[in-house]
């Protein structure tokens, strides 16, 4: 199981929405293997990530982007690599 956390702005912008859509496509591709949480940047939970610029995408505790939409193929590759790592454990 790989955790994905998306930290979005209180008033979601197009970048936040694009990030979420990207994650939803990953969830469809890996059913039951990803645990997705969406967190608003003013939520206490967001503090642990040191929010600087939403949207922020955190995959298994590693922040992969802040303030921008990631490259979809790259994000998929990172997630797949982390899934392989979690299966190996």
């Amino acid at each position, binding site marked *: 199981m790989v955790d994905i956390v998306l930290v979005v702005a209180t008033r979601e912008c197009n970048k936040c929405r694009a990030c979420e859509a990207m994650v939803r496509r990953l969830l469809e591709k890996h059913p039951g293997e990803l645990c997705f949480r969406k967190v608003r940047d003013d939520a206490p939970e967001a503090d642990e990530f040191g929010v600087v*610029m939403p949207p922020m995408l955190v995959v298994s505790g*590693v*922040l992969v982007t802040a303030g*921008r939409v990631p490259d979809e193929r790259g*994000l998929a590759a990172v997630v797949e690599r982390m899934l392989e790592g979690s299966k190996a454990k």
Partner: protein
Amino acid sequence: MSIYLDNNATTPLRPEVWDAMAAVEFGGAEARNPSSTHKSGQAAKKVMRAARERVADALGADPDEIIFTGGGSEAINLALKGSVWASGLSAPHIVTTAIEHHAVLNTVAWLETQGCSATVVPADLRCRVDPQAIADAITRDTLIVSVMLANNEVGTIQPVREIGAICRERGVLLHVDAVQGVGKLPVDVDDLNCDLLSCTAHKIGGPKGVGALYVRKGITLVPVIHGGGQESGIRSGTQNVAGIAGFAEAVELAEQEREETWARWRDCRQVLFGLQDEMNAVRVNSDPEICLPNCLSITFLYCDAMALTTNLSMRGIYVSTGSACSSGDLEPSHVLKAMGLSDVACHCTVRFSLGWSTTRDQVDTAVGAVKELVEMLREVTMPEELGKCGADCPCFVKA
């Protein structure tokens, strides 16, 4: 324990400085308000006099030429607005550079709304301003030139002595923003040929909210803050006596330890420089020949600097991006852009700045984390294959 490598933003307070401030605030002399006529006022006056002498010594100035302020930005505002207002001219001309701190650029921009005109001189790829470009920008209406001593993002030391000689010859005032220079570089106001020089305490282990403006004898300034006439009538407001004592202590310690500090910084910087050789598509923007040894700006192409710095922060390693975050958007750094870096390269740039407390072990740990994170983040943010870009690639520098 965290690793703090953002010392050009601010530095942790030195314990010796804390002790010096505590001695003022809680010591037996009960130093309070230096404007008071009773014994505690006299004690505060004595503390102020000693601090003024120590700061003046560090700048090669006379104690009477030091005006304490509430920080570097205030000193800069006083220097620029004060000299413009004192000139009596209706439309004076100001010369400054594209790589100045916003405290200068925004003050100049505001003065332009009040009738001043300004010329902003560009910098080269090494973030260095050409003195001849300053000379060419000076007109018969020019009142003042404002140039920084060392750049805050890249660390480049500017040829201020040469610029000062030009200003002296042309009869133009020179203000030096030495916020990043004092305590790190030997500073002598006569050697620099400057008329005004701004500095601050918190970049060298002193407290925040304390700065100073050197004002050469004979230069008239109109105050920005009016009131009780403290600081020779140029900067009203009860002085921050303990903070000023801390400033003096920090300056003196920095001066005494410079040789040892520079050796340590150079050693650490070499480790950071190694990233350029050990990784693909990495370029160091700071030229060691002309930069402060405590500052290194590095572009990790294809790696989002904001993501990198936030990940480092989550591991307790604090560095800053070369990009300022303002108005909810990521604006590329005006300094890096002035050096010719593309917007993409600006967004991939990280500043490592070392301070009095930085150790080699800390830098080694940070470098290891940077390598690991950059490799991982590039998989997400890089649009092309690694290894295609070198130092001459247009990705780094605008054609």
